[in-house]
């Protein structure tokens, strides 16, 4: 076990390096970018002045931001320090003079303030967690519930009509991106085109909270399920094809192996051989996916959240990107990277735990 332990320690030690590399790269890019918060503020200020003071103010609009204000603004948005120092302040390993010379950055749990909403970034992001986790968790569970039985059935009836027909379906699911499927389903079942049964986007109805407060729990649950159905299909589609085919091929592999032959030879009945002996080993590749799925809980939702207008992490990232709200973007990036890195290590760990044949070194 010694080699394995050192392997995982090395993997964990690599996490901070990776984290710093990626965040520094994006930080540098956003600092070098035109159209940052100062330009945005400038544009806003000019608009306001034009609205308030009329033509006279608009005429002097160009000089609205003199050098002093510019410096103040740069200071306010922390753009006046060189990029490496600015990054270290953001990370929290360099004293921040705005916070009285104390260390205050990501490492201390201070992600800064949104330039658009003036809220702390961390609050803004964590407030979106429930929605993302809700879809991630349900989507993942649902795809297990569908893909595993389907994969087993396909493996047991290899090359049958059922296998061919479902293969077609699986490949069709593979070739349509999840969000496209969402849009199509909304078109079919959320408009009058075929049959209007589901709502057209949104996480839940507007009056959900008041209904919940009024004690209409049954209505609330129903409403939630109604709104969940279409995005959920899009969510599942992402892993539907790979999981089903993985399950099928892995079970087929095992059914052809020697220990299954032995089990048959000693007279066990087919049901027991397939579902107890072969299936247990066939689940190993799927278990590895659990680690990566941690990443799916949060990320990968950009498109579906945009398509179905669900107010989660993805939509927050999208709107922040449109408004150049870099503190929030950096915050989201931190979470995405951390989650993905943990997911990768978790996958290896699960593999090492469930499969004693695997040895990392």
């Amino acid at each position, binding site marked *: 076990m010694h080699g394995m332990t050192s392997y995982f320690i090395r993997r964990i030690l690599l996490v901070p390096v990776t984290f710093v590399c990626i965040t520094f790269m994006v930080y540098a890019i956003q600092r070098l970018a035109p159209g940052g918060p100062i330009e945005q503020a400038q544009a806003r200020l000019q608009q306001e002045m034009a609205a308030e003071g009329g033509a006279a103010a608009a005429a002097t609009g160009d000089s609205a931001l003199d050098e002093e204000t510019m410096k103040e603004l740069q200071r306010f948005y922390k753009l006046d320090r060189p990029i490496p120092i600015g990054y270290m302040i953001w990370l929290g390993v360099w004293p921040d003079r705005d916070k009285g010379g104390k260390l205050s950055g990501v490492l201390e749990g201070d992600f800064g303030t949104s330039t658009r909403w003036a809220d702390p970034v961390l609050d803004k992001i964590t407030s979106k967690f429930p929605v993302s986790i809700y879809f991630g968790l349900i989507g993942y569970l649902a795809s297990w519930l569908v893909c595993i039985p389907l994969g087993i059935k396909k493996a047991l009836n290899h090359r049958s009509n059922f296998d061919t027909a479902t293969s077609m379906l699986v490949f069709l699911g593979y070739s349509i991106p999840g969000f496209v499927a969402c849009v199509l389903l909304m078109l079919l079942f959320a408009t009058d085109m075929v049959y209007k049964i589901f709502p057209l986007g949104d996480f839940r109805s507007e009056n959900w909270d008041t209904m919940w407060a009024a004690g209409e729990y049954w209505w609330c649950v129903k409403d939630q399920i109604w709104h969940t159905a279409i995005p959920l299909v899009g969510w599942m589609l992402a892993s539907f094809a790979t999981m089903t085919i993985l399950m099928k091929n892995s079970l087929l592999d095992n059914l052809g192996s020697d220990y299954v032959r032995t089990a048959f030879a000693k007279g066990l009945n087919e049901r027991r051989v397939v579902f107890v002996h072969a299936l247990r080993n066939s689940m190993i590749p799927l278990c590895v996916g659990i680690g990566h799925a941690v990443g799916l809980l949060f990320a990968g939702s950009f498109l579906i959240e945009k398509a179905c207008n669900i107010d989660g992490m993805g939509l927050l*990232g999208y709107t922040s*990107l449109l408004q150049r709200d870099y503190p929030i*973007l950096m915050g989201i990036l931190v979470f995405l990277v951390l989650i993905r890195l943990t997911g990768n290590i978790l996958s290896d760990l699960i593999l090492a735990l469930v499969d004693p044949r695997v040895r990392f070194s």
Partner: protein
Amino acid sequence: MSILTTVLLYALYAVLLAIGAAVASWLVFSVVALALWLVSLPVRLTVPKSGLMRLVKAIQLGLFGAREAAGFVLGWIIVLLLPVLKYGGLLALIAAAGYAIWKAPMILLVFALSWLVTWKLIPWLWVRLERLFGGSGKMTPITKKRVARFRRIKRGYWSFRVITTLFVMSLFLELIVSGKAIAIYYDGNLAFPAPREWVDKLAFFTKISSFEKASDFGQVGDQEVDYRKFAKWCDDPSELDGVKKELEAKLEKNEKRFAKMKPPKPDAPELKRKRYESKQRSIAKTKVDLAELVETRRKFEGGSAWVLMPVYPYGPQDLRTDVEGSFPLKPSLAKGIPLGTDTSGHDVVALLTYGFRISFLFALVVAAIGYAIGIVVGGIQGYYGGWTDIVTQRFQEIWGSIPFLFTIMIIGTMVDRTLGLMIVLMVILRSWLGITYYVRAEFYREKAKDYVQAAIGAGVSDRKIILGHILPNSLVPVVTFAPFGIVAYIGALVSLDFLGFGLPPGTPSWGALLGQGLGDNLTHYPHLTIVPTVALAISLYMVVMIGEAVREAFDPKVFSRLR
């Protein structure tokens, strides 16, 4: 031989081999263009020779000018004759049969050309290229077996044939779906705007203008010729009566107004004088136009004006202002908009076809470049191992953790997005990574095998071992990986376009069309969603079919089962 030279040679070979497919098609078309130019050379000999610049200018300015018409036509006839000669009279028969409908020969021409290029020229070029690099140009028995197995899987094989031919066909889109005329003739002026535009796209290193002035072709003004109006006049010269009425009404109105104006005194303000003079000029010009219109009409009636329009005469940049109503327009065959228009009025047929081309072009180029890099990196890792392997592996791990869609979007907000930039970002952030692991594993496995060890023992150089022995045996994962990669890259491009962070606005794209169909448009204009979704599903499904067949053919799994 030093490691550095080996790596360099190796990189060069891999890059050439992988980009080959993408470049070959461009190359072929350049050759066709060059051949056409050569054919038109005798006509050109009258041009005084004055060095290289003269030549370059001649290519740039007069590739298909009026005087070179004979050469151009001859070139096309030769290109057309090739498939006819090859397949006996069959194609000629089909062409003759289709001649009743004037559009059929054009589609057939394009299709015959596409088929020829795809199934004759590119394989031929591929073999030549391989021979150039010391290969035998013949398939090894195992490859032969794999190809035969691939052909037996009908779904995949026919998907492959259809998709490839469609893609090659889409490279000729300027001649099929375009607002510009293929050939236009008016009173001694002959021009080929659409072929010129096509050559302009093809010869991306130079600029060839396809602009034709309206006044040269019997229309009024300095703007570009309205080819569709021209075609209408050709079909029915009495359409010109409408123009005549319009001009007459304008003249009458202007004259009425002019009659009220008093001639300004010499000491009147300059502004007033100028206004009077301009009115006077405008009336005179309208009178001239009216007189010319009679002449124009005679020419249209007398047959000294004709035009050959593309099969679908609306390009991706043309607005369908000819149809009444506000955009987006719903599909209507009666109104001549089979798939409707998008929110700003572009014809969806044009967007769909050009979107197909740009999606596949993007995916193919991303795959080719990315896999070339991936083969080199994976090969070095697998063959040399040791520290190189460990360091690059760690680097890849870091690189693979970057959320690539998010990063491309962030970068996309800062710089001008172009097709080239999207390709570069996609290659750097994604496409080279996945294949590396497979190639590395293949190299690692192959190196341990006896034949490689024997070669090393016999003192064969690293270069020869890598290029001659290991590489041909480790390309299976690249081939099986590619179709699924293409599906992923097209999906990524559609996603980025959908979010508005993909190709620059104005580029025909499926994702942008899909993005327009959200919200209220979903209820009222479902064609904005249905068309790109169906197109995406069908084409990607076919690519997945190809991928499945290739995997089955190259890496067959035999499942034996006891019962």
